[in-house]
């Protein structure tokens, strides 16, 4: 842990050095970019927050900027209806040529007021702090199935579990799990269902990891048909569904990484490799994109090692 402390100290020195050298004359404007200008009630809104650092400020761009807490201000017909913490702590470099940084947020639920953000069809405007462009979003009436999905997760605990998982929710109330599973089951094509699936997949995988401390041993036992584990099966199922989320949906990166491990356990090494490739390619600057590179290297080493050993007659690709 001492190394980390030293790292912190060095980092601060670097930060203070470039802070002292900058010319603060130019203001940065955050540009809000949404993939959809129109969403439906109950549909999460994914927003990219983008800014470019002028060359006059700093010549050598850092890989990321940690960002202080900021709020998204959501207005409906000119009236402020929500003030939602951004909850992302980093802007990753997005395009070094344009000196552009990006962070992605999902606006869906007002975590502080504990209510849905886009509750009724209307025109909404969104801004990020005081230095951003204003994004206009048209929220339309939901379809029947979307309305059903929403009705199935009406409890604040459901939303917290969906947004943050058990690490924030604390106890995984069985009711919450049931609610999310019901959404996946009854409204499978909605974005909400895919998000629910992603969260369920990650949580089931955590439970699986706690129960089975060795990936390799479980994989071996499973391969030999010596073990049945519903936790793993559910994790695999939901991670697979969760992976169908749009590429820019933040939770998808983590889902892909765990899905790759699940595929490895299932001996689907081709799929595991392709998922890791996708992760590394689509999200090269993200935490999970970098993890994917390391995981890929580890996977290849295992493959190399296993290929050197005699083939197990019971080993079958799924």
């Amino acid at each position, binding site marked *: 842990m001492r*190394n980390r402390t030293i790292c912190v100290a060095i980092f601060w020195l670097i930060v203070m050095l470039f802070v002292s050298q900058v010319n603060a004359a130019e203001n940065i404007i955050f540009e809000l970019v949404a993939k959809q200008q129109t969403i439906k009630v109950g549909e999460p809104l994914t927003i990219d927050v983008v800014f470019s650092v002028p060359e006059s400020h700093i010549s050598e761009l850092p890989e990321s900027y940690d960002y202080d807490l900021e709020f998204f201000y959501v207005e409906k017909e000119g009236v402020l209806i929500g003030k939602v*913490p951004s909850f992302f702590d980093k802007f990753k470099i997005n395009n070094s040529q344009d000196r552009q940084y990006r962070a992605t947020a999902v606006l869906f639920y007002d975590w502080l007021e504990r209510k849905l953000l886009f509750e009724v069809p209307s025109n909404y405007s969104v801004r990020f702090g005081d230095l951003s462009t204003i994004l206009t979003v048209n929220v339309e009436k939901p379809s029947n199935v979307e309305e059903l999905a929403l009705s199935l997760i009406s409890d604040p605990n459901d939303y917290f579990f969906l947004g*943050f998982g058990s690490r*924030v929710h604390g106890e995984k109330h069985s009711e919450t799990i049931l609610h999310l599973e019901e959404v996946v089951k009854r409204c499978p094509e909605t974005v909400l269902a895919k998000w629910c699936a992603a969260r369920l997949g990650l949580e089931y995988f955590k439970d699986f990891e706690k129960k089975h401390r060795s*990936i390799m041993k479980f994989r071996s036992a499973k391969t030999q048909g010596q073990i049945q584990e519903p936790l793993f099966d559910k994790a695999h199922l939901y991670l697979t569904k969760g992976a169908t989320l749009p590429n820019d949906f933040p939770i998808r990166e983590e889902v892909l990484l765990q899905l790759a491990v699940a595929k490895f356990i299932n001996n689907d090494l081709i799929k595991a490799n392709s998922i890791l490739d996708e992760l590394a390619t689509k999200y090269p600057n993200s*935490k999970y994109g970098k993890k994917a590179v390391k995981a890929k290297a580890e996977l290849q080493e295992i493959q190399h090692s296993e290929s050197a050993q005699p083939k197990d007659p019971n080993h079958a690709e799924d």
Partner: protein
Amino acid sequence: MKTRYILQCGLIFIGTLVPTAFACHEVELRPIIGIEVVPVGSSANYYVPDEPPTKPAAFCKQGCSSFTYTWKVNGEVVGSDSTSYEHTWSSIGTKIPLSVTASCGGGGHATAFKDIRVVGVGSVSAGGQISIPGNIKTIYVAKGSDGATIPVTAAPNPSGAWPTGKPTWENANQAYEDEEHEHPIPGLATFPIDSAGTTTVTATCGTSLSINIVVVEVDLLEWKTYGDNTPLDSHPAVPNNGGKRIFPGHQSPTDASSDRKKVYVEAVVSPIVAGIEVYFKWYDVDDPSSDTSPIDSNGAAGNDNRGSGASLSATSATTDANGKASVVFTVSMAPGDNFKVFASTNSSMLNEMTQAKADSMTLPDTVVATEMLTTWRKLWVERDSMETIPTSGNEKNHVSGSATYGPYGVPIPGRTEVELNLNLYDDWSYIDQFENGRFVITDGTTERTYTVFSNTSYYFSHDKIVVIGDPTGDFGGNPPTDYELYDDDATAMPTYPDIENSSWGSKFNVAYIKPVNIDASDNPRKTVVFDRNLDIYAVMTVSGNWMMQRDHSSSNSFWNVLVVSAFQDTDKDTDGDIYEVCGVSAIAGNACVFYAETCREASGSDVEHTIVHELGHTGGVLYHCGPATLIPPQIERGCGQTNCLMSNGGPGSDFCDYNIVEFRKDSNW
């Protein structure tokens, strides 16, 4: 005289009709000369002018040349044989007859008369009160400005004119019709009321009569603690308000009194007398802690308090037997709100008070002011902590398993690689997470501990650690396989940092806030379930178990904040994420968490320092002050001070003005 002469002649005429009557000499007498209006008790000379030969006092037509004179007062003979007479007038009266009779040898006589008014002081009055003999009054007058006077009048007895030059005045000044003081106004004097004290004013006209005049001023004006409220105390040296401070919030979590905002304003008059009306006014005087924005945008002027609801219970009160008059002042609740009350026995003078005069302390005569009274708030800190670190279950703080040992010295001399035969998962799954930790093995008789040099974080394969030393060699080639792997954590739980008595707690002084620990008796539920890695988002969104043992909520009457001692956060990813989170606040929850183990590990991080920073967030500072943040430097917020306590990551040592403005609010903390 003509009437008397006719009467005399009438008698002579009657005498001519009476055969036995004899004819007398006809005498004429000149009138009595002397003062007709005299002060009682005084002597006066009376005489009949005698200017022979042409104008003798008495004249007999029959030629008598000698006369005898008889002086009478009220019919009694008081003197004779002289044309003059001196009399001492000892009794008051309206028409006391004075006469002198001149008689001649021929039986003739004539009498001259004069009515005398003998005057005393009938009454003396001032300020609506009238003293009369045997009933001397005392009047109370509010002290006036320099040169101010009140009239004092005296009335004669019997009514009518005063004797010339009367009455005379003692301790009052004769009033005049003219500025040259040539024409005194009888019976009228002026009395100066520009200094406090008791004076007896006396009017004298033969006799004396007094009236007591008491000029009263407010001698002392003080703030006094109301009821069983927290005693007012002297304001600390910083900020430089001086005077007294009041804590108007509740005194404890169970206190429900609505009187904590109240304070007595007590005036003591001089001289000490009961029944005196004292008048009061209050002003929101200038905030002395700053004369610049954002704290004090109206400079040296007052009327800059942030709270509302300050008021006086009455604009006047009457002194008791001890000369004390009190009203109740209710302060506003925003910390730093400051007040002065002004009082006078003279309502007119008090009405000359203005905000500007209060600000500059240029007070009208007779008006006195209290010291400044400043509102302070206690920030009641409820201290909860995670319970003792468990030794089993999911939240235990170690990993156990069965090890496989590599050869000593491979891959690094002096070290041994150990395969853990499991995957380090979740919050342990970071490279070198266990660096400097402990690897503990025992064969039943000997327990050995090895320092961890490094660890892997694999996605698929079993993780490995490298320990310093040779476990295989130490156990004679047969090391135990069962192990326990510990991180280098050293913090014992529960832990309850003391902000109240920490030097960091006093950092809130600049905002007139005093952090105070809630007593253990008022905080019966003080341990929460242990969570090895409490997520910062759980705190920020007020979710999860960490605040389940909160005993008290916060209100504007009772500023309460929950500080929970947690172990460490989940932000343990060294893959480019090196930011240590020592504390985090619940944005909407009046609560915060500090991570005790993280704080311990972060170099030089002071626990109380971290908590005070987080308390700052709970007080409304949502953003970190620049520039010491990791944000693009041109997006600085707030003060721009490098030493600001609310800057990010490496906070400074003092709150900046922008922070202070957030804290000094008239609402819930």
